């Protein structure tokens, strides 16, 4: 089996196919401090791609409440069980088993198959906090005593996808032009090996069409320079889609590279899988570190320190870039913070958006001495 290098866990691993990074790699950053689980992304995705027969419970994008929300039921608890033999990190290197290392005899990687009812409760655990809260409790320091946060999820368009590795029919492929992972509906026979293999459970079986289907990264939009539906409809402006470079070809003016590689505030979800997932999360600041480290790896402490500095105004470039989130439907290939504005550029370096870091505002005092009146309707 060929050996590939995974920079997220800083080690090599065995993968069934030769190592060949795509020319561009689809990537997304989501700021979990801003998600309010309004599910606008979920509905935008649903109405665009999966309103059909056999797709009633199919959500390519979902938002679940952590720690008790899952779609499908228990997906990441099961993942932790599959990798239970010591998920050991030594500094930034993962020395525990990946899914490929944990493969049982006769299989390419460790899998589990959700039952049909596991898919039937996409909003289970919604808004539930980690533990009961006494009346009168005040949570005035970080991390919170009782906590929860929202985790929006799409396909991670992994560099080393489990679905591609698992498909005996070779019906799944990763596009060399943008790294988007797609299932060929004409080759798929519905064996559901990809459903069992994907640790994020983002390949879902359609019992009417009798094929598996998954997030397509809104490729018709991305091909034309536009960000996916879940990004452009996000009212909390928590998402930014772009393309990530491998660590040896970092461009600091690429928004995704800046967040992931330069500032290291955005982290992959369960990097222990070994798949090199390409959706990156800015971890929530109020959640206990042990939980976050298990979910996002050892980079959590650095990411949160940097984010806190940004909140204190000590990271103006990062703060500026966060204003680019949700400010344009176009894909920003590069950005620059100039004065009190952040500017996004397309792949040809043409300006596509210019956002002020502080929206212009006018202060109207409660009491107007000139007219000798008191205004009641000001915020």
């Amino acid at each position, binding site marked *: 089996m060929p050996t590939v290098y995974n920079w997220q866990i800083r080690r090599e691993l065995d993968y069934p196919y030769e190592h060949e990074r795509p020319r561009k790699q689809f990537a997304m950053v989501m700021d979990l401090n801003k998600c309010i689980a309004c599910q606008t992304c979920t509905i935008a995705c649903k109405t665009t791609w999966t*309103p*059909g027969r056999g797709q009633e419970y199919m959500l390519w994008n979902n938002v679940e409440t952590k720690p008790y929300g899952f779609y499908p039921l228990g997906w990441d608890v099961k993942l932790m069980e599959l990798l239970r033999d010591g998920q050991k990190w030594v500094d930034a290197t993962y020395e525990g088993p990946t899914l490929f290392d944990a493969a049982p005899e006769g299989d390419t990687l460790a899998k589990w198959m959700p*039952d049909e009812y596991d898919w039937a409760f996409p909003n289970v655990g919604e808004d539930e906090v980690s533990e009961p809260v006494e009346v009168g409790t005040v949570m005035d320091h970080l991390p919170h005593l009782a906590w929860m946060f929202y985790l929006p999820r799409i396909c991670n368009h992994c560099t080393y996808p489990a679905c591609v590795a698992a498909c*005996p029919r070779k019906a799944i492929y990763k596009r060399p032009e943008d790294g988007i992972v797609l299932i060929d509906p004409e080759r*798929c026979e*519905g064996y559901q090996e990809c459903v069992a293999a994907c640790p994020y459970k983002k390949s879902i079986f359609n*019992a*009417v069409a009798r*094929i598996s289907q998954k997030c397509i990264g809104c490729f018709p939009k991305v091909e034309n320079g536009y960000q996916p539906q879940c990004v452009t409809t996000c009212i909390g402006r928590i998402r930014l889609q772009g393309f990530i470079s491998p660590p040896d070809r970092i461009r600091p003016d690429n928004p995704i590279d800046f967040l992931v590689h330069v500032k290291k505030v955005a982290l992959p979800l369960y990097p222990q899988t070994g798949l090199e997932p390409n959706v990156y999360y800015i971890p929530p600041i109020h959640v206990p570190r042990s939980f976050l480290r298990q979910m996002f790896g050892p980079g959590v402490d650095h990411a949160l320190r940097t984010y806190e500095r940004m909140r204190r105004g000590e990271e103006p470039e990062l703060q500026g870039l966060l204003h680019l989130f949700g400010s344009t439907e176009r894909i920003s290939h590069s950005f620059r913070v100039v004065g009190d504005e952040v500017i996004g550029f397309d792949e040809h370096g043409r300006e596509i958006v210019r956002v002020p870091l502080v929206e212009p505002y006018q202060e109207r005092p409660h009491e107007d001495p000139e007219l000798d009146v008191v205004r009641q309707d000001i915020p």
Partner: protein
Amino acid sequence: MASRMLALALATLLASGSALAQEALRAVYRADGIPLDPTDAAWQEAPAVTVTLDGQTVTEPMALEAAVGEVSVQALTNGREIAFRLVWEDPTEDRFHVVAKFSDAVAVMVPYRPSDEVPITMGGPGDRVLILHWAAFRQENLDNGYADVNKLYPNAVYDWYPHARKPYRYPEDWRNQYALAYIGGEKLFRKNTIASPVREVVAEGFGTSTWKDVQRAEGRGVHVDGRWEVVIRRRFVEENTSNPDWGPGRRTFFTVAVWDGSSGDRGGRKALGYAWIPLEVEAAP
């Protein structure tokens, strides 16, 4: 893994060794036509050969144990077509292919080149095989109507499907562009609605199996007394497509694979005969 591959190599050697001694299957000539009904009395005229099956343990994902140990095979020909009747014990009747549940199925594999040197592993590069694949879920669709949402989940409630007309029924009312997109395009729609439980597949090695553009093989399967009885029928030579080198008065080879849905069999997880079995097709007298 290494020990298993060794054991498998040994088993394959033994199996190919026994192929020399394997009793040939005679496809008996019958001028009166070949019944698709596996319970038809005409099948009593054809001698049966028993094929021993083992779990697929060559390529991942594997079936480490064979869910079905043997299958009985008969064949009839009318000079233009050949039909196989396959019978195996399977107390669990799996007629649906749904979320995390799989259908029973059987397939006959014939090499394009009539030689037992063609790799038994679904052919090899440049060495093509024809696979005739019958599945219980397709039979179910034909016998009792397409396994649509209302049939799979009778209590399912839904408000509305955009771009489709009521009553929502797959496939009849889904012949519009938007609906086709939902189900994976026109080609998939046609794949799901061919009026036969058998699909014609070609392959040149593991992972290469592909549906033929021309799909004319027929079949019928019934589950009686805890066993499946299935007939698969195809012309020796179909027009406008490629065909194995076979026909009346000729000798070629075949083998069989069986899937037990309840055991999680699908795709590479199957029980198969690891040796080519000679197939002697009678010519018209």
